């Protein structure tokens, strides 16, 4: 199950803590906004990646899994508790 990272660019405020935490996975530009890896993430490092996501004060990073992304969004939202 290959996962990818996704940034909500409207939420992201360029704190850059994600890139500080896993610099070899998440790059930072000169304004400290993340540059995400092109390919799928290394499954063996998901723990670190999760912690990098948790560092984000804006909660701007999410994991996208292909099987979830392929599900119909409308149906998925209805199934998630608390979703509108």
């Amino acid at each position, binding site marked *: 199950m290959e996962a990818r990272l996704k940034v909500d*660019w*409207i939420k992201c405020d360029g704190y850059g803590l994600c890139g500080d935490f896993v610099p070899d996975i998440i790059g930072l530009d000169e304004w400290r906004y993340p540059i995400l890896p092109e390919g799928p993430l290394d499954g063996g490092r998901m723990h670190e990646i999760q912690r990098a996501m948790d560092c984000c004060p804006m909660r701007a990073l999410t994991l996208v899994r292909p099987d979830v992304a392929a599900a119909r*969004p409308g149906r998925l939202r209805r199934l998630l508790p608390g979703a509108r």
Partner: protein
Amino acid sequence: MLNTTPDARRLLAGPSLDGPEPLAHHLARLGPLPTARDAQRTMSELDASGLLGRGGAGFPVGRKWRAMAERSRGHAVVLANGAEGEPASLKDRVLMAARPHLVIDGAVLAADAVGANDIVFYVGREHEAAVAALGVAIEQRRPGVRQRIRMIEAPIGYVAGEASGAVHFVNAGDPRPTTTPPRMSERGVNGRPTLVQNVESLAHAALIARFGAGWYREAGRGTARGTALITLSGTGRPAELLEIELGTTIGEVAAGAGASPAGTSAVLLGGYFGTWAPAADVWSLPLDPAAMREKGLTFGCGMVGLLPAHACGVDATARIMSFMARESAGQCGPCVFGLRALADATRRVADGRSKPDDMDGIARWTQIVAGRGACHHPDGAVALMASALRVFEEDMDHHVRSGRCLAMSTPTGLPAANTASASAPTNRRMEVA
């Protein structure tokens, strides 16, 4: 001339474009609009016509309507997009001002076809003639039609016309684009599935529904079919609106306005979201979305901007990049900071006062900004920059090394980079087969 035989039924056919065509003239000239009962046939004709959306993305219109019809369950909304924040384009504002009933026809057809009760006309507030003409035209429709339609004036701004920005403004008075998903086709105006369609696409649909795909496809050169509105600028005359047969070459259009290949160094295609190309490479290129895509170019909003040989492409690019940076909605960091840095560095290069690392910076930002925003504004801007780096490579190099321009720097003839610059266009009509 591009004309073959005149046809009174194309977009810009009929009376003068100086004022709105009254409803009675419109009906006498084109006949009644097919009804909701004909919706299936309308969509079949749209599919067969091959009509592509004219807002810039070029998605097949028939397929878009069908997909919406399948998901709407009668609860959809049609948003007729006439924001036209692109300063290099005239087509939508003139079409709405001169042929308001044709655009309304298209929106009504779309609503009937996709299962929408409500129609929102989203019209750039700076396009005053369009707002006035549509306001009058909506009131002239019978109650059952006019009660379905409301008009909302779009705020001035480039990204306000982006689909999610338009829906955001209609819903919440805020024209900034939103994060997708959800797509507007899933959850748009009032949370309902929303068909966002450019007004030129709607006007074409209104003709195709009446006269059929076969009629639409009678026009066109080579393998390209149908007609399109384009805006031609940089000819030394004010920007002009033309209706061309798709497949007409860039050279034919330019020569029709008195431009020559020798007097033109480059062409900006598709608008400020578009691409620069060397004039010699594209002079015989057909204006046809498929042929252009093959060359890595875009038809986009139909802009053909000629850069005269005596004008500086680096300066023209710096102006456009400055516009694009200013027009960022200001939400996403890579767009806010990246486009500003690109615009500033390009300006320094154009003025012959570049810093040692400016060219490296331009190359890097052009690479890293794309794909890093909620909407595609930064992607379009850096695509234009990337094309400038290819087309004006030698000239940029010259600016950096000698501080001077290869061409004599004169005003480019491209529209001044501010959104309120819609100076009175000269509208030239063109009859097509």
